[in-house]
């Protein structure tokens, strides 16, 4: 094994092989975050359910009962929980990913490992929560005597879209955060604003036609509508929006990886 250490010039290499060699560390980092959370909290895994559940109750009351928004023929709580599934994943994973490098700064300045592992493990942890919540959604649907349609096979595609978008955006912010500590204040702002710029509390059908194209530039719109479409059989797919969502997500992923890899070499110097 021959390693040459020198200043990197030119474009960054992705070097996925190295990430693969460190896969045990990725697993342990994710496992550490999960197991610490369970040791420090009383209801542990319960939070993966309680948070979306309470949000669902409040949103149903405010948007379904008070504002009387249309529910496309499904119970309002189910409409919301289906959207909360990808939304909670995004909100948690994005915030954790953005914080992943700075939050593990003491490791970054003390030892070498592929820095990509940090955001990736944040995503992995949030994804496990997502899987737990998914089971709860099926249980809630069962309680309303609803059966997912055959379109459920499309869920992995929309989940993948959500993951790609989240990683892309998360990588950008993780790297920016190392240099610009303003990011800490900016991240909650994005998740709060995004909640209302995405069809979480309501159905996309209430968005006026003329705003549809602009609104669909937010990839989470396609992800959430996709979840409703494949699980509840509602929300006709808006194909141009979906294409835009896929395009934007892939663009963010590619540029995010690029920016992250370009800046990671100075992480230890500026932290």
């Amino acid at each position, binding site marked *: *094994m*021959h390693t040459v250490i020198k200043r990197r010039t030119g474009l960054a290499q992705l070097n996925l092989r190295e990430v693969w060699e460190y896969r045990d560390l990725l697993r342990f980092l994710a496992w550490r975050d999960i197991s610490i959370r369970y040791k420090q909290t009383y209801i542990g895994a319960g939070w993966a359910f309680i948070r979306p559940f309470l949000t669902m109750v409040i949103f149903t009351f405010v948007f379904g009962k008070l504002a009387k928004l249309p529910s496309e023929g499904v119970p309002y709580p189910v409409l919301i929980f289906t959207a909360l599934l990808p939304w909670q994943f995004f909100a948690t994973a994005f915030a954790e990913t953005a914080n992943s490098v700075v939050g593990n700064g003491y490791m970054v300045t*003390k030892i070498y490992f592929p820095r990509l592992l940090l955001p990736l493990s944040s995503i992995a942890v949030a994804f496990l929560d997502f899987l737990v919540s998914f089971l709860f959604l099926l249980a809630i649907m069962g309680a309303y005597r609803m059966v997912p349609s055959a379109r459920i096979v499309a869920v992995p595609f929309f989940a993948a879209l959500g993951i790609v978008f989240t990683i892309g955006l998360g990588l950008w912010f993780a790297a920016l955060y190392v240099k610009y*500590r*303003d990011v800490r204040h900016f991240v909650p702002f994005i998740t709060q604003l995004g909640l209302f710029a995405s069809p979480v509390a309501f159905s996309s059908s209430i968005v006026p036609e003329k705003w549809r194209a602009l609104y669909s530039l937010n990839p989470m719109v396609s992800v959430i509508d996709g979840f409703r479409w494949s699980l509840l059989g509602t929300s006709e797919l808006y194909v141009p929006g979906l294409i835009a969502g896929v395009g934007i997500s892939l663009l963010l992923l590619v540029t995010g990886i690029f920016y992250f890899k370009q800046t990671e*070499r100075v992480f230890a*110097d500026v932290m």
Partner: protein
Amino acid sequence: MDVVRALGVGKQYRMGAQLTAYSMLRERVGEMLRAPFRKRDTAADDGTFWALKDVSFEIGEAEVVGLIGRNGAGKSTLLKILSRITEPTEGEIHLHGRTSSLLEVGIGFHPELTGRENIFLNGAILGMHRSETRRKFDEIVEFAQIGNFLDTPVKRYSSGMYVRLAFAVAAHLEPDILIVDEVLAVGDAAFQQKCLGKMRSIRSEGRTVIVVSHSMSVVSSLCQKVIWIDQGRVRQVGPAMSVVSSYLAEGAKNAISWSPRTREPFPFNYDTVFVARADTGESIDPFPGDAAIDVILTFTVDEPLPASRVEVRVHNEYGEILFTSTSADDLPHGKHEWSLGAGRFRCRIPANFFAPGVYHVSLTEPRGTYDILRDYVLSFTVSEEQNLFARDGRPGKIAPLLDWSRQ
């Protein structure tokens, strides 16, 4: 074959990089608005400095190499570059073999996780595969001597146990090149010996070790070769003993004073420390063999301080500790009380004690619950004049005149 080869390595930092490393977006945006076309890196007074410059060296297989230098000389920067934590601004380093670095023990240890869990986590962080950690698990546990606490969260460990566990994981890595920073400065004496033994065995297995230490006795007993870094450049490379002795000889003083203004805000501070002839009180180097030597320590206690003591350690020219003497050796508990205000200790080393040579003195400074070590603050020379050693060149590191009688 050289397993490590550094060629003209340099590292440039921005001034004050440690303090204002990350910037506010506002400043950066403002800067771009004011001077949109100026390339930021070529700013006129760029306020940069070279932490390392033109550093070149080779390290062969199975060599144990010490990196020494004063604080801020660039050792840590070099270690960080060797460990791939940061990249050099210029030059390159070639490493042949699997490299592991230990700039700190217990990286990634989490207080909530048990000893067992932390072993696996830390192993993974250090680059061990899960199967490898599992294979060495029993050995690690045994080395750390934490048997019964394996399934206790490490937040309940004593600091000694914590460090032992952390070092144990690291010691069971099997890299071709091991890079170590000061980890030996932790733990009790017995454990330090164990760690030193482990490092010797790593060497005997044909692996290469690069170690940074402030303890010249560790460096001169462990390393064959030493690289002395001074102000970012390689000052001297060579056999451990000769580099260590020239390092220690530099700036050797037989008196040192700390001005009250530069004093740190601690309850105990030394004012002046010096060595002098016991009979005349003169601090004239070298001392003849038949002169008793006083180490005089004057100090001020500014705040109440728990019972403790100060230690005087005397090293030979290679940094090996010849002996340690404390201000409370005559007391059963090895501690004494302090009264506020100025004070003075005299530690008398008898006449006819040292062999001719250069000696260095380190002092401890009590800080309440712990001591800090001020290493190699004083130096003095003992001449061949009136020296038993010189009379017949007898073997030994010291040449004390003992009390003989014929019975």
